[in-house]
């Protein structure tokens, strides 16, 4: 049973969903408030949930990325702690420099909500570790700014270092290289636009999402 810090910013709205996903998987969630520093050593894993931190104002994730809690999260990264960003969490991690690239407005200039098939490109050793390379799963997406962008060299480098985590089977937003999720070089930080916490049980439409959190129970 791992003690997990769940970050909460003003406007985070998948906070309870993420909390429940951690709990259901046997982890022990604890809130981490944006305005406070925390002691990274006290936690075994961190989750940055989805939502609209600061209303997505200015750029999605930009304002949240500058909060005190993010300084502590950087320390957690230095310690090599596993960190998962979901949707707005992905945007925040990019804005905070914990992941490369940026997420910009969907190519269609509209919010998209749907189920989306994604393919595992390079497995993570912590998040969804039991899903195999090239396996395809269905997860819900719901975002307005999900188009991944990075410079060509960066993408090339990420490919070489196996940092591309998930790719869309059908690109819903104009993301470069169909990227749905990436990891950092060390592999401890991972993030994706789709929402695993919305696919935990068959009644939700699919239960592939629970795989993301299994490591939290051990």
């Amino acid at each position, binding site marked *: 049973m791992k003690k997990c810090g769940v970050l909460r910013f003003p406007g985070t709205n998948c906070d309870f969903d993420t909390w429940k996903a951690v709990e259901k998987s046997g982890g022990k969630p604890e809130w981490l408030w944006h*305005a406070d520093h925390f002691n990274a050593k006290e936690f075994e894993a961190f989750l940055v949930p989805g939502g609209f931190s*600061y*209303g997505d*104002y*200015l750029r999605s994730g930009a*304002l949240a990325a*500058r909060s005190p809690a993010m300084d502590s999260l950087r320390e957690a990264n230095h310690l090599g702690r596993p960190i998962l960003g979901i949707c707005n969490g992905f945007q925040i991690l990019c804005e905070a420099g914990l992941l490369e690239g940026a997420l910009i407005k969907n190519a269609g200039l509209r919010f998209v909500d749907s189920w989306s098939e994604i393919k595992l490109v390079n497995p993570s050793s912590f998040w969804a570790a039991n899903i195999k390379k090239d396996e395809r799963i269905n997860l819900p997406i719901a975002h307005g700014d999900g188009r991944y962008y990075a410079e060509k060299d960066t993408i090339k480098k990420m490919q070489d270092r196996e940092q591309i985590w998930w790719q869309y089977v059908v690109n819903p937003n104009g993301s470069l290289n169909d990227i749905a999720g990436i990891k950092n070089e060390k592999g401890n930080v991972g993030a994706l636009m789709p929402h695993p916490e919305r696919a935990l049980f068959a009644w939700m439409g699919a239960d592939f999402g629970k795989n993301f959190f299994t490591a939290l129970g051990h």
Partner: protein
Amino acid sequence: MKIGVRIMPRSELLDSQGRAVFKLFKDQGKNIESVRVGRYVELDIRLSDKDQALKHAEEMAESVLHNPLIENYRIEIL
């Protein structure tokens, strides 16, 4: 000819983005009175006559670029 259109929320109305950015700057201890967030559109118009180009830009600003109910705009030559 390059023309810029600066589109800002009308001052009597709430600027929700500006309010959020302002609050954050305040919390960070910045020396600031107010923040307003709007849009900026750069038009490259295929006319060399200044007045004509400005007129063209104004037409576009009026008809499409700004929403008169909630925004004001200003035009400038870049």
